């Protein structure tokens, strides 16, 4: 939920509660005031009544022609009860409607007889008053509520504008680009400080990213150069005519070891670069076509090992990958399928548009399939393999929203690449 929607919602709920409470309280107050007024007038009428009784010693209904104004009922000898006020409804004589009245009941003695006297006063006007007041009040409060709601919305929209502006710029911010994070300097202190902090963090991140990138580049340079030196010297050494057979073998070993180290270094650097997201330009790549093409490129090796390739379906399997990594991925998959194949084996490529399989025949797996994708996990002890191929495949897949799975079935080893569900 958006921040403004959330505050507006809370504000609306809170003000509704407050207005409701205020309305009820106001209603009660007005009612109490009206009752007090009516009751004080009823008391005055009681005084009038008693004055009348004192003067005339008797009561006749005809004095008050208004219906039900004063009701005198003899109740015989009874103790005098205190006066009480009650609300009552009395039927209107003409239009047969129930009307609200306030009634004061007291007991008095007229010529020795105890009488219950009820004096009533219509509340109809007071009720109308309350209704009018309540309606006016509700309208005013409603308008006020709408007004403040609208104002509040406008105001927070304007107040929070710098925040949203910064947010959208941070979203657009690319760590790998050379342009630093640019943020405004809003009037509001908190936002200004926030932007300042964000800008510093962005600069620091970019700087760290750059130095990390430089480190991998420099490490590569620093390791590759001595390796190039070893290679060059070995090449010069073998030109010498005076080497014995065993010296030749030692040199061969040195040479092989330095080549392996170079491959290892390149593999590790590639992994580091993928982890650092140093490959940025994604393109739509059809892995099926790329794999088929790579298998064609390798026809010589395939022919040499007498491996047949089967591609039952060529449904495109399109993924978003930087081209150089797509190439790396495909090459490692193909190399793996060839390396762990046996002579006169088979390689099969299939795709259904949602996933892609590259299977190869081969000897049963010796190591734990769970740990196959770990770095330096080698199947067998081939001196040419550095054990990074599958780790590179997995790293590429993990970084670019793909999933790679291995399964073994009846002498077939299959690698299945599919889109990760949450990435789709």
């Amino acid at each position, binding site marked *: 939920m958006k921040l403004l929607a959330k505050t507006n919602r809370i504000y609306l709920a809170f003000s509704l509660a407050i207005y409701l409470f205020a309305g009820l309280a106001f209603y009660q107050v007005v009612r109490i005031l009206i009752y007090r007024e009516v009751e004080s007038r009823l008391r005055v009428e009681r005084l009038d009544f008693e004055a009348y009784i004192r003067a005339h010693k008797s009561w006749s209904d005809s004095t008050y022609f208004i219906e039900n104004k004063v009701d005198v009922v003899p109740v015989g000898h009874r103790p005098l009860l205190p006066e009480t006020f009650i609300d009552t409804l009395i039927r209107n004589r003409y239009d047969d409607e129930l009307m609200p009245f306030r009634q004061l009941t007291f007991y008095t003695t007229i010529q020795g007889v105890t009488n219950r006297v009820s004096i009533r006063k219509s509340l109809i006007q007071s009720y109308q008053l309350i209704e009018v007041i309540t309606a006016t009040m509700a309208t005013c409060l409603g308008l006020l509520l709408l007004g403040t709601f609208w104002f509040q919305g406008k105001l927070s929209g304007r107040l929070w504008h710098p925040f949203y502006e910064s947010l959208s710029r941070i979203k657009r911010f690319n760590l790998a680009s050379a342009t630093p994070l640019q943020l405004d300097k809003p009037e509001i202190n908190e936002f200004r400080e926030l932007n300042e902090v964000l800008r510093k963090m962005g600069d620091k991140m970019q700087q760290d990213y750059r130095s990390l990138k430089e480190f991998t*580049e420099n490490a590569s340079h620093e390791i590759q150069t001595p390796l*190039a*030196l070893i*290679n060059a010297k070995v090449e010069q050494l*073998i030109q010498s005519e005076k080497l014995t*057979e065993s010296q030749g073998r030692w040199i061969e070993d040195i*040479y092989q070891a330095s080549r392996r180290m170079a491959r290892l270094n*390149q593999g590790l650097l590639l992994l580091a670069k993928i982890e650092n997201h140093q490959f940025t330009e994604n393109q739509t790549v059809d892995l099926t076509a790329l794999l088929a093409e790579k298998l064609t490129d390798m026809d010589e090796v395939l022919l040499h090992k007498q491996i047949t390739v089967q591609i039952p379906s060529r449904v495109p399997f399109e993924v978003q990958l930087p081209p150089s990594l797509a190439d790396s991925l495909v090459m490692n998959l193909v190399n793996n399928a060839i390396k762990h194949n046996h002579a006169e084996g088979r390689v099969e490529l299939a795709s259904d548009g949602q996933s892609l399989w590259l299977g190869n025949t081969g000897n049963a797996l010796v190591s734990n399939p769970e740990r196959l994708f770990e770095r330096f996990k080698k199947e067998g002890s081939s001196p040419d393999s550095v054990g990074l191929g599958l780790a590179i495949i997995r790293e590429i897949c993990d970084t670019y929203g793909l999933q790679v799975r291995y399964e073994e079935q009846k002498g077939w080893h299959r690698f299945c690449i599919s889109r990760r569900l949450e990435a789709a």
Partner: protein
Amino acid sequence: MKVLVVEDEKGLAESITDYMNKEGYICETAGTFREADERIYLYDYDCVIVDLTLPDGDGFQLIQTLKKLLATTGVIIISARNALEDKIRGLEIGSDDYLTKPFHLSELNARVKSLIRRRNFGGQTEIRYHEIRVLPASRKVYINDQLTVISRKEYDLLLYFLSNIDVVLTKVSIAEHLWGDNIDSADSLDMVYSHIKNLRRKLLEKGGSDYVRSVYGIGYKFGEP
């Protein structure tokens, strides 16, 4: 032929120079950007081999200066950086080739030769070695003036040998020359063997001499029997 090697690693520069001198090139070295910059202003070179990371400057800048001074000079970049962007940038500013360290001296030599051939004769030249005659433009091979049909890989192999006469070529360098450095080496070494066998057979069939010799099991040498 004058070649300038710009490389800050002394040992490597020395190895390249030795190799080039043996091939009959006049080879000079520069260990720093300043020195290289001075040399390209003072002398004309047919080919310059440049390391991108120099202690006091950037190899790219050197190439740009060089291309402004004398556009016909061939440029080969040797760099430890294996980034695609570097390769593309190198080609954009006018370098002819890009080799990633560690490389084989024989490979560098073959590239220099091919480059000089392209520059000097526009590719319209032939390579002669005794009875073997190769026309690079049409990729045709003649032995004792008889057209000999050989496969593409065999042709590449022969050209690689002819670029490195009397030099021991390691099996790995041959494999990488033929298939690039991404090929799995165990298989490729076997394939190198079978290609060499076939090439030898084809040369002998047309009455050529057997120039290929195996050396210490580490590699092969092409030269006088």
